[in-house]
């Protein structure tokens, strides 16, 4: 089932600046997709447009089969979980559990106690239930914001730069968390490394779509990276350098697991090669 479908979607600001142009996108249920692109590429605008906050827009957007328009925006928004770049923009209540319960109570959903517990447990903030969310660290605030979204049980999660502003540990914890969530997700980010770990495929956006494909395809396309001002993550960069020095690299690794597998293969190959050479010389 297609959860999100965009057909030739475009959006211009009041001053005439074109923010989005001809965006086509279809996301199946359970898929995790990244929108990558430099600052000002329209990533956040696209997420806010899908959540019904950028009207009117050109083209057509369908969320769970419903056509997005001004009259349907509220109803569609209730089935979407939008994570803002700054969690302070979406945390309102005095305690963590009150904040997680905020959405389900507004939407008059049943079994609030259970939803709140599940939401907090899935992101690891159950022990902070009675704490004031505005006193937590930035990373924890992001988790609380995600718990609030999960408690609403949305069909689609829209995450705006989820890893920005986080320290390395919080970042890797959040990546692990997003990887483990079995949800349909659209993640706007310029953190290619994080996207490589989380998503199934990506769309490169620079006002209009530049390319669509897996993260492997993307890191292989040096011209796309250069054109859009994106930087190749360190791991594929190292292996690209090895490739240039004549080592046979099967696939540019994106994650540490892939890198260690590729490195093991490379060492094995080189060891066999050296052994053969030594046997030959004898």
């Amino acid at each position, binding site marked *: 089932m297609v959860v999100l479908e965009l057909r030739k979607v475009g959006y211009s600001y009041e001053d005439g600046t074109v923010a989005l142009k001809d965006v086509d996108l279809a996301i199946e249920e359970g898929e995790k997709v990244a929108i990558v692109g430099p600052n000002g590429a329209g990533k956040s605008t696209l997420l806010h447009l899908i959540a019904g906050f950028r009207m009117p827009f050109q083209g057509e957007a369908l969320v769970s089969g419903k056509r997005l328009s001004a009259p349907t925006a509220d109803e569609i928004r209730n089935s979407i979980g939008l994570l803002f770049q700054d969690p302070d923009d*979406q945390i309102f209540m005095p305690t963590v559990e*009150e904040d997680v319960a905020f959405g389900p109570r507004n939407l008059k959903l049943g079994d609030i106690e259970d939803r709140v517990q599940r939401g907090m447990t899935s992101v690891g903030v159950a022990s902070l239930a009675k704490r004031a969310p505005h006193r937590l660290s930035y990373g924890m605030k992001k988790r609380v914001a995600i718990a609030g979204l999960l408690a609403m049980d949305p069909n689609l999660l829209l995450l705006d730069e989820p890893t920005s502003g986080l320290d390395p540990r919080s970042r890797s914890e959040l990546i692990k968390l997003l990887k483990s969530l079995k949800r349909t997700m659209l993640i706007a980010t310029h953190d290619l490394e994080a996207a490589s770990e989380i998503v199934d495929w990506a769309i490169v956006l620079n006002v209009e779509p530049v390319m669509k494909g897996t993260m492997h395809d993307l890191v292989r396309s040096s011209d796309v990276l250069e054109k859009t001002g994106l930087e190749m993550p360190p791991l594929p960069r190292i292996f690209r350098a090895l490739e240039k020095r004549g080592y046979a690299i099967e696939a540019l690794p994106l994650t540490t697991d892939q890198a260690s597998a590729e490195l093991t293969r490379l060492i094995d190959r080189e060891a066999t090669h050296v052994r053969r050479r030594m046997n030959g010389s004898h």
Partner: protein
Amino acid sequence: MIVGHVRGHGHTLPNPDEHSKSHWFGRLDSRAKIVGVFSFVIVSALLTSAELIAASLVLAVAMATTSGIPLRPLSKAYAAALPFIVLASLSVFLFAGTERGLEMLGRTSACVVALLVLAFGTGTFDLFAGMRRLRVPSVISTLLMLTYRYILVVSEEFSRMRTARRARGFRGGRSLLDRYALKILSFTAGTVLVRSTDRAELVYEGLKCRGFSGDITVWRTSVLGRNDLAFLAVLIMSSCALALAQTEVMRW
């Protein structure tokens, strides 16, 4: 691990609500406190007899000292309010005499002390949530809740900008005649205003994303217990006694 992680990012900003539940007054239901204190304040504000004003002041001070709220911050807050109280009483001193002036001073002090006890002894959100449960219109309680929530965020932003200014050598702002400093400070204020406007838009979108329809109510609500009712009864009876005595005074 999570607790350690949070502590590792400890904020330095003081939390005004930190100790609001550490004393018996703080643990009372906010509705009982609001109704009790406000009825006392209304009655005290209407007293005209010097003896009754003195009695209401004694009651307010007794409430402050027995509440368990640390007296130092309470006294500091009262000291901060004192110039305004004196200013309010000054005209009465000048035009109606010393006796009336002292009465005005006592009356205002009794009200201010009682309100300070309420403010210091109740978490800010509890206070607004209590107001909402007392049927205060949602537009007022919701606006107050959001204003308080974002005052904290904006003040953090302001403090970051102040640090940034200092880090870049700015040492002005101590004199009103320093035009350069005034220019820089007005730019800062302008920037904070622009950022706040942008944030307000995002906050609205954040609220809409979570099904907000104009009302913020608290999920975990308390019920009035024996202590709450006892506190309410004492304050209401004291207020009634003062009011009755006042009507007697007026009749004579």
